[in-house]
C-alpha cells in the first residue's frame, strides 16, 4: 500500500512581470491516511502556493517533482477531477460569486462530485435535508444559503461557508489555508469541530496556520516548518508550542 499523500521534490513557479519566479523549491512531505499535519512558516515562504498546487490552480506551474494521492498522479488531474478524487481546499480568501445563489452552488458542486464518484445525484429534498443538518452543526443561519456565494459575507461567514462546503463534499484530504485567520474564539471552535467531525482512518488534512490556537482544538499528528519554498524542519505537536514562543528564527538560519 502506497502512502496516502506523498509530495516529492515539488518545484513550482509563478509568472510575474519580471519572468518566472520560483516559489516552491523542492517540497517533500508524506501524510499517511488518517493523520492531520500542519504547515507553519513566515509570510511568503510558499504555504499558500503549496495549497494551490495541490488543488490544481493553473497559474502555478509545476516545474518538477511529483504528488501521489492514493497511488495516483495528482498533478495529471484537472481541478474538478481532484475534487472528485477527494481533495478539498479551504481558501484563505474565499472568492465572491455575484449572481450565483449559494444553495444552488452547493448542490451543483455536491452533485458534480457525486456524479464523478459514481454515486447517485441528490434530489432537492435530500439535498435540503443534508445542507440543513450541516448548517446547523456549523451554527450557520439558513439565510446564508439564499444569498449569493460569499457576496457581502463577513470574514467569519466566508470561512464557515468554506467549512460548510467541505462538510457537504466529504473529501478524504482537506487543505485548510489559514482558515482560522480573522475568526473569533467561538467561530474558531466551530470551524475546528467541523474538521474534527470528518476525521477518521480515511481522512487526512493539511492545515496551514500562523497560530497555535487552532491546533489546541485539532490535536495534530505532525508539524512542518516551511521556509524559502522548502520544508526545513518537521516534528511532533510540541513544535507548535516552541514556534509560538520562539518564532521562526532558529529554522530560518537552517534554511539559508
Amino acid at each position, binding site marked *: 500500500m502506497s502512502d496516502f499523500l506523498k509530495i516529492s521534490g515539488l518545484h513550482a513557479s509563478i509568472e510575474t512581470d519580471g519572468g518566472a519566479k520560483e516559489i516552491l523549491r523542492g517540497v517533500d512531505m508524506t501524510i499517511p491516511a488518517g493523520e492531520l499535519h500542519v504547515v507553519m512558516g513566515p509570510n511568503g515562504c510558499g504555504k499558500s502556493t503549496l495549497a494551490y498546487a495541490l*488543488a490544481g490552480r493553473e497559474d502555478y506551474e509545476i516545474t518538477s517533482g511529483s504528488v501521489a494521492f492514493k497511488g495516483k498522479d495528482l498533478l495529471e488531474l484537472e481541478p474538478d477531477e481532484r475534487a472528485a478524487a477527494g481533495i478539498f481546499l479551504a481558501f484563505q480568501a474565499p472568492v465572491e460569486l455575484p449572481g450565483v445563489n449559494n444553495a444552488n452552488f452547493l448542490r*451543483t458542486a455536491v452533485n458534480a462530485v457525486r456524479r464523478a464518484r459514481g454515486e447517485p445525484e441528490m434530489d432537492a429534498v435530500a439535498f435540503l435535508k443534508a445542507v440543513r443538518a450541516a448548517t446547523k452543526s456549523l451554527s450557520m443561519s439558513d439565510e446564508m444559503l439564499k444569498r449569493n456565494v460569499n457576496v457581502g459575507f463577513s470574514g467569519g461567514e466566508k470561512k464557515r461557508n468554506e467549512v460548510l462546503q467541505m462538510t457537504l463534499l466529504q473529501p478524504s484530504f482537506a487543505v485548510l489555508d489559514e482558515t482560522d485567520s480573522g475568526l473569533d474564539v467561538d467561530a474558531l471552535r466551530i470551524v475546528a469541530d467541523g474538521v474534527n467531525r470528518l476525521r477518521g482512518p480515511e481522512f487526512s488534512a493539511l492545515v496551514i496556520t500562523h497560530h497555535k490556537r487552532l491546533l489546541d482544538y485539532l490535536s495534530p499528528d505532525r508539524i512542518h516548518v516551511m521556509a524559502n519554498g522548502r520544508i526545513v524542519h518537521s516534528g511532533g505537536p510540541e513544535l507548535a508550542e516552541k514556534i509560538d514562543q520562539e518564532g521562526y528564527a532558529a529554522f530560518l538560519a537552517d534554511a539559508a
Partner: protein
Amino acid sequence: MSAPAAFAQQLEKTSGAARDAALALERIGLPGPKTEAFLYTSLRPLTGRSFTAPPEAPSADAVRALIMRSVPVDGPLAGQPLVVFVNGVFSREHSKYPDQAGVHIRTDATDAVQEDGDMPFLLLNDALYRDVTVLEVDRDTDAGSFVVLSLSFGTDTSFHPRLRVRAGDGASVTLTEIAAGEGAYLNNPVLFCDVSPRAHVVHTKLQQEDAQAVHMAAVRVAVAEGGSYDSFTLGLGGVLSRHEVRSVLGGAKAAVHINGAQLLTERQTGDITSVIRHAAPDCISRQTVRNVLGGHARGVFQGKVFVERIAQKTDGYQMNQALLVSETAEMDAKPELEIYADDVKCSHGATVGALDADQLFYLCSRGIPGAEARQILISAFLEEVLDLVTDEAARDALQGVLQQALAKRIGAVS
C-alpha cells in the same frame, strides 16, 4: 452614404406623407461605414440584397405555431392579452384581448410621420409601414399587461410594424414585446410611447428573431411630469440587430430606465443605442446593459445622456458591461455625457473583460467541470441584470428563454 437600393422597389410605390419620407430616405441614404451613428454596426447583411414587397401571408397554422413557441401555454406570460403583428401588419385574427373600460385599441391606415435624418430606420418605417396600431389608455386607468408579438415570415422581404402607445394622466400599462420569425427577412418595428403626467409604462422586450434575420427597431419615448418609462430589452436573435431608443424627459420628476442584455455568438452583431434627453429638472435616468459575446460576435453600445440647461438636479446613471467568452468576440462601447446644467449627478462607465480566473478556479475546485463552471458564471452575469426587469411575469419569461439559449449556444463557443 449608400442609396437605399435594397428597398428601392418598395420606396417607389409610396404616396402621400410616406412618399415624403421615402424621398428623405433617398436623399440621406442608408448609413454607410462613415456614418457616425453606425460607426460600429455594419449594415453588410443588407447590402447587395433586394427586399421585395411582402409575400403572401403565412398559413394560420404557421402563425399559431409561432405564437405557441413565443408564448407557451404553460409559460409565465400565458393568458395575457395578445396584440399580434404578422409580417408587419396588425392581425385581428390572431390578436386576443378583452374589452376594457378606458382602454382603446385601433388600427389606422395612416399615421403622422416625422423626418428624423439621423434615425434612418425610423424613416424607413415612415415610408413603408402598412398600418399603425394605437393603444390608448384613458386617464387614471390601469390597463394591465399586454403581450405584443411581432411575427415575421419570409426571405428577402421587409416588415415595418408600427405601434403607438398613449398613456393618459395617471394611467399605467405593461407591455411585453416579443419579436420572432422564420426566414432571412428584415423586421423594422417602431414604437412610439407617449407618457402623460404621472403615467407609467413598463416595456420589456425579447428579441429572438430567426438567426438569419435582421432586426432594426426604433423606439421614441416622451415622458411628462412625474411619469415613467421603464424598459428592458433582451437581444438573442438575428444576424444583425439594433435597438435604438430616443427618450425625452420633458416634465419634472420624470424617469426613464433603458436597461438591457445581449447574448450573441457566431457572427451576430447586436447594437443597443440610446439617447436620453433630460429637458426638465429633477428627472432620473437609469441604464445598465450587459453583453455576453462568444464566437465572432460583435456587441455595440452607444449611450448618450444629454442634460439641458434647465434640467437641474438631474440624476443619471449609465453602465455598459461586456463579458467576452471567446478570443474573437468584440465589444464597442461609446458612452457619452453632454451636460449644460450645473447641479447634476451623472455617472457612467464601461467595462470589458473575460471570465474571472479566480472565480473559475473556485468553482472547479468544488468539483464542477470547466464547461459547467463557465456556464454558471455567464448565467450569473446575465441573471444579475435581469433583476432590473420590473414586471415579474416578463422577468420569468426572459429567464426561461435565457437559460435555454445558454444551454444551447454557449457550450459551443466557450
